[in-house]
């Protein structure tokens, strides 16, 4: 059902946890739907230097969360914004058809975290 890469990220998820002094945090999903992802980023000089996640959800949800934290590290904010849910799924060698719509929210969580980071910066500079 799941690709080997999905199973790898599901079995050994990278970057699980919180960042206590995160620069941006994004949470997407809804426990009622069975998927919640919380993604925290640390930004230095316009680059994402760390990312961590916590996820309540199925195998696809956990694997995409893990994958997106890996993909985003070292990227600039602009580059990170270009990461789509589709790109995450592709990096995992694809997801089953019935998973493409529901559990594939990791990039959304990332974008929300970046939005949070920008709002905080704006608030600081204001």
């Amino acid at each position, binding site marked *: 059902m*799941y690709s080997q890469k999905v*199973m790898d990220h*599901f*079995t050994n*998820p990278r970057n*699980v946890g919180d960042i206590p002094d995160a620069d941006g945090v994004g*949470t997407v999903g809804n*426990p*009622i*739907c*069975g*998927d*919640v*992802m*919380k993604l925290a980023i640390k930004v230095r000089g316009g680059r994402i230097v760390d990312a961590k996640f*916590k*996820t*309540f*959800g*199925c*195998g*696809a*949800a*956990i694997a995409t969360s893990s994958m997106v934290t890996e993909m985003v590290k070292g990227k600039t904010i602009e580059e990170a914004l270009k990461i789509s849910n589709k790109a995450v799924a592709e990096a995992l060698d694809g997801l089953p058809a*019935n*998973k493409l719509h*529901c*559990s594939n929210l990791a990039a959304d969580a990332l974008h929300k975290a970046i939005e949070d980071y920008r709002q905080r910066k704006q608030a600081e500079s204001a």
Partner: protein
Amino acid sequence: MRRVYLDHAATTPVRPEVLDAMVPFFTEKFGNASSIHSFGREARTAVDESRDVVARALGADPAEIIFTSGGTESDNTAIKGVALANRKKGNHIITSAVEHHAVMDSCKSLEQLGFEITFVPVDGTGMVSPDDVRSAMRPDTILISIMHANNEVGTIQPIEEIAKVAREAGVYFHTDAVQSVGNLPVNVEQLGVDLLSLSGHKLYGPKGIGMLYVRKGVKISPYMHGGGQERGRRAGTENVAGIVGLAKAIELAVEEQGEYARRLARLRDMLIRGVMDRIPDVVLTGHPERRLPGNASFCFKFVEGESILLNLDLQGIAGSSGSACTSGSLEPSHVLLAMGLPHEVAHGSLRLTLGRDNTEEDVQYVLDTLPGIIERLRAMSPFGR
């Protein structure tokens, strides 16, 4: 790696005795039971004898047994067949909120033809109240369909009492006994039902074969149209090997039911107690006592069912879940929701169903494995502690 199959409510392996009984009917005794030559008569004899065996096991008359392609077809036939044949008497059907999709969706398909369906609720343990069924009754009610035992949480319904309600009102009563035959005593007279569905592959028989009991005198239209097989009540060349296998499986299941149920209940109680003791924030779903002997089902808070299943599978343990992800829909199991569990809890469901080959060691292995999995997933969860 140890492989522990704990998904017997999904399907069971065919017993060797059953396969042995079937094999000759693929190659040597391959005739069409409708043919009048010796090849056909051989097949006909096997079908007739199988029908006798099944009837005897359920306390029915052979003429009341219709062979079908499975539990789903039996349910479709019972519900649509009775509805269409009794339309002049009324167009109202009563069923429960926790039925298998084969019953639920058959009822819903009838709504499009102008029938009205009442879904009676269940309590927190998944039980239907006979009083609720009585209250739902209308002058135009033609059929009540309430399952014998629930496939997800194992709750056993008060079928005898509901049957009395139906009989007093002169309304046909169907029960989906797919999960109960072999696990509970099932006798159509004692239950007092007019129609009863069962399926081969849930009781160590083959997939693709089932049976519908239809009490003599019950008005029912054929569902499958075509040749005059099953005395005009179910068209299609008889699946002789399947029928022979089904009969053998039912015969053994009914013969061994008492001992089987006792053994399973002991393992189940060990499993339930072990899980409840070792893992916090867990809910036992279904009725604490009136449940199938092999059914242990839970909801684990803060985690999602598919993740549990995948982790168990990586350790060789096969279970199932009513989470949205595993049902292929966006909603968790309608059964868990009907019992009043919140969505977020229902998503953390795990069903472990025991069977013939399971041992105490298997249960112990699960008890050694599951707590770590839940803990790890909770550590990953934004809601975890």
